């Protein structure tokens, strides 16, 4: 039996890697991947708690998160492609149209 803390630890490590990737990467695709990583780390902890507490609520929530993540990835990639057609770049430090 794997104790709960291991799952939590895995989740925390994954989340931290996701945050780090989100902040340090310049490539938009990689930023998306980091985002997915963060979402899935949350999913792991939710499932772990769900099992630990013997309650289905956490797992139901996970389904929602997966759905939202899928939708978000689809929209995000669509925006990415639309943007790439106008500006042939996907490096975030070159995407600064919103600069005040």
């Amino acid at each position, binding site marked *: 039996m794997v104790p709960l803390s291991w799952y939590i630890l895995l989740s925390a490590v994954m989340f931290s890697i996701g*945050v780090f990737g989100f*902040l340090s990467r310049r490539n938009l695709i990689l930023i998306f991947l980091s985002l997915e990583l963060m979402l899935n780390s949350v999913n792991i902890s939710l499932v772990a708690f769900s099992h630990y507490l013997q309650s289905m609520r956490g797992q139901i929530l996970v389904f929602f998160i997966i759905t939202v993540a899928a939708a978000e990835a689809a929209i995000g990639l669509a925006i990415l492609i639309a943007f790439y057609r106008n500006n042939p770049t996907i490096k*975030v430090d070159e995407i600064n149209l919103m*600069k005040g």
Partner: protein
Amino acid sequence: MLKYILIPLLPLIAFIINILFGRNFIKDKAHWIAVPAVACSFILALSAFMNVASGNVININVYNWIVSGTFTVTIGFLIDQLTAIMLIVVTSISTLIFIYSIGYMHGDKGYYRFFSYLSLFVFSMLILVMANNFLLLYFGWEAVGLCSYFLIGFWYEKKSAANAGKKAFIVNRFGDFGFGLGVILVFLTYGSLEYTQVFSDAGSIAGQTINIFGSDVDLITLICLLLFCGAVGKSAQMPLHVWLPDAMEGPTPVSALIHAATMVTAGVFLVARCNPLFSLSHTAMNTVAIVGGVTSIFAASIGLVQNDIKRVIAYSTVSQLGYMFLALGVGAYSAGIFHLYTHAYFKALLFLGSGSVIHALGNEQNMQKMGGLKKYMPVTYAVFVIATLSITGIPGLSGFFSKDEILWRAYSSGELGKVLWLLGTIVALMTAFYSWRLIFLTFHGKFRGTHEQEHHLHESPKVITVPLMFLAFGAIFAGYAGIPPLILEHGDKIGEFLGPVLGHPHGEGSHLEEIMVMMTSVLVAVGGWYGAYIMYVKKPDMPLEAVSKFTPLYNLLFNKYYVDEIYDKVFVKPTLKMSDKVVLGFFDVKIIEGIVNGVPNLVGAFSKKFREIQTGMLSNYGLVMALGALCIIGYVIFLK
């Protein structure tokens, strides 16, 4: 009751029709609406007069205008003896002048406008005299001022006319401000604005004082002086007389109707109407008398040397108004109203006569360029002579009766009265001199105008001369309403008629003194004529010699004692300067524009700094978000 309400309503209806449909539909037929309206008003006024003469006093409330707590103001009409006389004066002269205007204003492009304003004026004036409370009186008072402004500036393309209109309006503001305060004070004191209530309670506040700026002032004196302020403005008394001579820029019928016969006498009417208040204050009465006396001699002396025919008559009007106030001030209210009534006829006649002259000469107003008009304009000349005989007080014409009544009442009213009588007699001398000077310069001698003008000289058409004849009739016979008891027992019909409202003046003096006063006034009238005759007919070089001999005096009089110049230096220039420097230069530019431009500038400056936070770098936003999340988590874990 309806017929009394119709008296002011008919001119109002004429005004509304003419102003709405005049420009496009009625055009040069405007008189078909205006003249019948005032003529009907005149007939209704006559019937009201008959009713009053049979002993009734009409007091009707038509409509509750303002109801607020205990403060109630109605639109209501009071027709007593005083109002009845005023109604006759206003409507009869209006009717004649309306008819005269058909000829005088013929072909003017503002023809319909002229008749609509004139109708509005008659409406306002009738409201003024018929009101049964102070607020409605105030309404009429301001409305006649407004019409006066419209009509002085009737030819608004002419800058001098537009300026004269403004001057009249602004100068009247000063007087009306005092009048407004007076009305408020009447309400605060008596709790009502109705004449009947105020006048019946008048005596109840005798001796009360009111604290103003730390000093105690007699309440009733204060009320009277404030009301008198309005009268001074409207009736062009010193020191607010400056607007009336300039008002002559308006068309001549306006000068005759508004600035001689009716509106300017509103001040006299006001003081007479408020006689129960004025009689309680000795100070106020003396002020009225002195202002009147000083104004009359002041204006008469200016009239001696003016060359503009209408200005001479204008100064004569100011001077005669001073006479009326003199009479009111010595307590002879009915004598003042009597003079108002006779003066209306002969002064309207003088103005309309001068209008006829100006019309014939193609808008020439300078008497030095007239002369010898007698043979070209016999009717105008005849009525002019009648009016002049009347104003100078030659026995047998109206002016004599009213003028003599005033002088006698002044003489018999005590110490101050004697001085005022002396002033009045000197004024009578001056009046005779300048009135005859006007006639001699205009109608006698050789024509001094251009050849072309001489070619066009002609008597005015019937529509102009017939009203003149009617007025001449009034100028002769109006005075027979008040024959002094000395000549005919119970001859002073008008004094007895007005008695219930204005009371009977009481003076001391023997018959001998009365005869002496009368003789003196006749003597100065003839003396004035003789002086003018010598100077302007016998020895026409004499005026020039006199001018070169008394140059400083002549200049002083010719420039109207420099009052306009002084006002210009003391009031007008500093006001303009202050407006320019303080109001425009400081308040407008610095404060108003400072606020208007300052707020957006401030927001702009702030946002310029703050928007630099928006780097547009996705990772920066992410970092801030992560740090924020960390902070919240840290707070939840460690501090809670």
